[in-house]
């Protein structure tokens, strides 16, 4: 729809609404800006470590002289840095901003949130340094050493306090679906992280109980932390950007509550074939198939809301990334449910197919939605436009093409790997040799994605350093309200 078709409103209400949003964005500027800005530093670091780990898979001698850069350290450092440094840091910033906007309440204590951002980054710095120096806990997805946890705990306590405060200060009435998703994520993550950290690192339970707890945590980190933040962002940004309410709000409610009630059972499908009670895994397989319910509701909503508006992805960088991410969410979730089926799992388990799937969720969906969210949020936080359309294009196309290649190559290589691993007569080294071309293509694809990240990084900090005031002189966005008293 074009802006000319917007219904006429009372000029006083328009001005009041504009001023309220300005106040909200101004209050969020420092804490949200620090969370988002620092997440980009982790994104670049995590990407470089990813390339190093990827090269080592087909060239094991690469950087192997330095113990800090051996595969056993670089790979978990990459995983934790992108999970907690990039995705979590950006997710907190994006979640807080959307909550503040939807609660129509400014962040009240931006000093404690700024401190939270600093502490969160200190936790990530200490944790990644710990992994690289050899202090990894060796628990997948929880490799940060114990001494990083207090920073994360205190920081998240501040985030939770402020998010509860925002919800309490909202005007009476309906809580929008994005608020439900984001608030739930802000409660689920600390429960997951600190329970798993306590039971697997601080006071480890007996060995047989560790894998179920590990995969309860690792799977839920994706589904009950990154996913609700990403979905909350998509449910806000897609309708907001195109100016059209979501296709079916009823379905969005069903989707949220079915995720809340059933997702936590999913993680045990990672243990199919392992020495665990059959009922435990079967319950998880059933819950995984039940995930079709929330996924279909979200898919219908995101894609039907966009019907007739896909052309706007040409002109809106935020929408382009978010829609790409929403499509990947549908694909990743359908794929994830099918991977829980025992017969298919027998082929894909322990192969690169699983790695491709994890990246479809964490990168294709979550990261792309977060990129889009940042493109939408930052100009509003800073009252300043993105400096270069070219860099945004480089960012999108490098990440999109790089990721699609990454996913296709690694999935294909993973299926071949799994089929061969099920042939008892095939020597293992032959299977390793079979995967080599796909691992090299993975390095190339990952490098392309990193190029996109570098373009984003440059664009972001160029935007911050630039003093080009955009008020009254928009560069990138069509809808700007002229400032009655523009800064000369």
């Amino acid at each position, binding site marked *: *729809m074009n802006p000319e078709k917007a219904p006429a409103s009372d000029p006083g209400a328009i001005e009041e609404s504009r001023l309220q949003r300005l106040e909200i964005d101004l209050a969020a500027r420092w804490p949200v800006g620090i969370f988002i800005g620092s997440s980009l530093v982790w994104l670049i670091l995590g990407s470089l470590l990813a390339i190093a780990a990827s090269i080592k898979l087909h060239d094991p001698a690469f950087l192997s002289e330095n113990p800090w850069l051996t595969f056993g350290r670089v790979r978990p450092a990459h995983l934790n840095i992108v999970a907690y440094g990039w995705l979590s840091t950006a997710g907190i910033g994006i979640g807080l901003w959307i909550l503040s906007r939807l609660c129509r309440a400014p962040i009240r204590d931006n000093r404690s949130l700024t401190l939270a951002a600093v502490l969160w980054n200190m936790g990530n710095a200490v944790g990644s340094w710990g992994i690289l120096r050899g202090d990894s806990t060796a628990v997948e997805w929880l490799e940060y050493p114990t001494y990083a946890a207090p920073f994360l705990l205190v920081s998240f306590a501040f985030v939770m306090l402020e998010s509860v405060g925002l919800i309490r200060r909202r005007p009476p009435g309906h809580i929008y679906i994005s608020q439900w998703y984001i608030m739930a994520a802000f409660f689920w993550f600390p429960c997951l992280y600190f329970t798993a950290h306590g039971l697997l690192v601080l006071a480890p339970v007996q060995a047989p109980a560790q894998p179920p707890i590990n995969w309860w945590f690792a799977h839920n980190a994706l589904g009950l932390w990154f996913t609700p933040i990403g979905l909350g962002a998509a449910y806000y940004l897609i309708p*907001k*950007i195109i100016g059209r309410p979501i296709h079916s709000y009823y379905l969005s409610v069903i989707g949220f509550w079915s995720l809340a009630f059933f997702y936590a059972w999913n993680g045990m499908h990672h243990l199919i074939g392992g020495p665990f009670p059959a009922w435990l895994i079967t319950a998880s397989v059933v819950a995984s198939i039940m995930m079709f319910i929330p996924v279909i509701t979200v898919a219908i909503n995101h894609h039907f809301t966009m019907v007739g508006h896909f052309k706007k992805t040409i002109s809106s960088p935020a929408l382009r990334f978010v829609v790409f991410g929403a499509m990947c969410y549908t694909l990743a979730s359908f794929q994830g449910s099918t991977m829980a089926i025992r017969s298919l799992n027998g082929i894909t388990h322990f192969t690169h197919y699983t790695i491709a799937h994890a990246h479809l969720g964490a990168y294709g969906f979550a990261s792309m939605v977060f990129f889009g969210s940042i493109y939408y949020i930052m100009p509003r936080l800073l009252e300043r436009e993105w400096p270069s359309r070219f860099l945004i294009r480089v960012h999108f196309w490098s990440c999109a093409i790089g990721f699609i290649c990454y996913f296709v190559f690694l999935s294909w290589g993973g299926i071949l790997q799994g089929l061969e691993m099920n042939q008892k007569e095939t020597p293992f080294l032959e299977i390793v040799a079979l995967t080599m071309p796909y691992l090299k293509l993975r390095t190339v694809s990952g490098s392309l994605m990193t190029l996109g990240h570098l373009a984003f990084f440059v664009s972001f900090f160029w935007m911050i350093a630039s003093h080009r005031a955009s008020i009254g002189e928009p*560069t990138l966005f069509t809808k700007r309200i002229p400032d009655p008293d523009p800064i000369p």
Partner: protein
Amino acid sequence: MIIAASIVLVIMLLGSVATIFAFSWAATHQQFENLDKAAESIFDADEPIGSATDAFLTATHES
């Protein structure tokens, strides 16, 4: 082992209770009513339905 299992059990029970509480709170506080109107709650007077809020300008503004 028993202590650890108990901790997990307590956390899972608390989580379940919290989820059920949130659901019942939503049901009793009109969160499942008038949902079509609720979908419009993200729009404001100056960013109403029908107003796109994020798009590039024409090529003349290329940086």
